[in-house]
């Protein structure tokens, strides 16, 4: 069997973890008494970048800022749609300062920045991932409850011009959609239904023809928080059954431990943001 392709994920934004640390607790994984080993974090982060490059992706780096340690989780910067960028609107005050940093970076690099209304929370690609069924239209799945508002889906659909289907997240340990959903190609995705309510499960069931369904334990290994570069899946953990299935489908599996970042509740995907996503055809081509 040969793996298909997503059509995006070949150009990735990352932010070096020079200021990274667990300085506050805003998810069940964060414990302030846990100490991040900075050297180890940098080493793991660099290894992840190397793995992505080896898989064929271009990695773009942004400057870290001391006052916003979680800037390292670029998945939460916002949503990219061609030349359009919608910055996140963070629920937790601890992360709200990141928005301005991201707006400046994307504005400087040629993106048109569109904003969500001030009263609508949404945490970017951490809570919204596209799935394009073979021969079908791209649908953005958007998680809500812990970090993002259900109403953000309506606003995003307006701004992006693509259908956005909100899915309720129900497990606080799987607080972002990207811990429960990882699109692989036009037929397949890694899915963690224990993280969704029954309606959300049905929505994904109707959308993804061949899901790789994780058990609760597998989901809690954060293996859905993987980065897909064409036929390569770069994973923070690889439960044996999951790895075997991915290989049976023709994917190359690369395990890339990022344990220092798991201390803050983030895996491989959280450390990356695809810059080449195009959700709906727009007049202008993405910035080079």
């Amino acid at each position, binding site marked *: 069997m040969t793996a298909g392709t997503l059509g995006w994920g070949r150009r990735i934004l990352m932010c070096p973890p020079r200021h990274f640390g667990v300085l506050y607790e805003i998810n069940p994984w964060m414990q302030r008494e846990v100490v991040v080993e900075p050297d180890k974090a940098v080493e793991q982060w660099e290894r992840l970048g190397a793995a992505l490059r080896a898989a064929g992706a271009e990695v773009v780096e942004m400057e870290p800022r001391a006052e916003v340690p979680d800037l390292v989780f670029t998945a939460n910067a916002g949503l990219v749609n061609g030349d359009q960028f919608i910055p996140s609107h963070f629920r937790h005050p601890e992360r709200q300062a990141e928005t301005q940093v991201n707006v400046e970076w994307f504005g400087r690099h040629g993106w048109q920045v569109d904003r969500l209304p001030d009263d609508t929370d949404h945490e970017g690609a951490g809570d919204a991932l596209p799935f394009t069924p073979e021969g079908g*239209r791209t*649908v953005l799945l958007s998680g*809500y*409850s812990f970090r993002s*508002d*259900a*109403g953000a*889906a*309506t606003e995003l*659909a*307006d701004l992006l*011009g*693509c*259908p*956005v*289907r*909100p*899915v*309720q997240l129900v497990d606080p340990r799987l607080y972002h959609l990207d811990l429960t959903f990882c699109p692989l190609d036009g037929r397949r995705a890694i899915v963690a239904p224990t993280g969704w*309510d029954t*309606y*959300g499960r*049905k*929505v994904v069931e*109707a959308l993804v023809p061949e899901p790789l369904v994780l058990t609760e334990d597998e989901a809690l290994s954060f293996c859905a928080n993987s980065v897909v570069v064409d036929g390569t899946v770069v994973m923070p953990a690889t439960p044996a059954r999951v790895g075997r299935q991915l290989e049976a489908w023709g994917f190359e599996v690369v395990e890339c431990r990022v344990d220092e970042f798991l201390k803050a509740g983030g895996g491989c995907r959280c450390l990356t943001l695809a810059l080449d996503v195009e959700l709906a055809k727009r007049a202008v081509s993405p910035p080079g």
Partner: protein
Amino acid sequence: MGTETIEVTGHIVDSLLLAKILDAILDAGCDYEISDVRIGKTSLDPSSARIAVTGDDGALGPLLDELQVHGANRTAQVDARLEPAERDGVLPAGFYSTTNLASDVRVDGTWVPVGNPEMDCALVVVPGAARTVPMHRVRAGDLVVVGSDAVRVHAPARARDTQVFEFMASEVSSEKPKAVLVAQVAGRLRAARERGGRILVVAGPAVVHTGGSTDLARLVEAGWVDVLFAGNGFATHDIESNVLGTSLGVSVSEGVATEGGHANHIRVINEVRRHGSIAAAVEAGIVSGGVMHACVRKGVPFILAGSIRDDGPLPDVMTDVVAAADALRKEIPGVEVALMLASTLHAIATGNCLPAGVETFCIDINQAVVTKLADRGSHQALGIVTDVGLFVRQLADELLGPR
């Protein structure tokens, strides 16, 4: 019980969000009515729904908070826009036109109940209260509600006794066992009386023509009528039948035309006018029986509203119809049952003034009259298509025993 309207927009169908919201409403023991739904044509087009959620106040608040999590928000709650009437009898443009249903208007952040629901009126707000005011009674400077955003209308309450009142649910029909309907109307009158409610009777001249006035008089004498509303014709023929034994010249007892009978009603009107009022004619012994006599004797208020074709008219007839409608409005508080007996004009006039909560029975041989009342907005009216004389006799027998 309260009702709040929520709105939800987006890809709510494909995401099953609409289904989830509706399920959540039912799971909370509340009920909903989708007042407006727009489904997007393609998967790209957003859909939207406005949903009226009804439930106990204890359940509604937490439910609405929960629904907010799913992106369903209460429709914007704004205070009523109030504009002063610039002249007596003239409303500001865009005034809110009322229904006859129980309603609230939002003033200074609180829902103020409308004191006297009546259709086709304006809503005038005074500190702490709101009332319906017919156009002609608005005075310059009255604060009138403009627009409908801040008015909520309550759906008609279900009858207290569904079993007994079930027949209200059906359309007007001539094909119903009349004795059953009469017994049920009698039951409603008894129930209203036990609650301390008042009973309004609107009567047309056919009540007299069909020989029903004796039985209606029995009901008045026995205290089953609290207020009578009629026209010149009913009162005239009621008195004519009592004084001369005819109704429009036809013998009420024998059903044959009497010689010179065509002028009987004019002569009777002339006699009453000679005495100055119906009450004076009763006092003088000119009128010794019938419905009007019973009303005078029992002190039951009656309002006679005139029309352009009236002969005479009787001195008690109010020829200013606006004043007559106002006089009727004064009698409406406390009315819980209205019987419309073979009257078109006066029945519709009464229907216009009644709150929707008043149980209304419209009895007429002509089905069109009954439907007409409903078409004019008195949806609470139950029609009974039958001969009114027989109906009144059966009703009196049911309530008072056979005469």
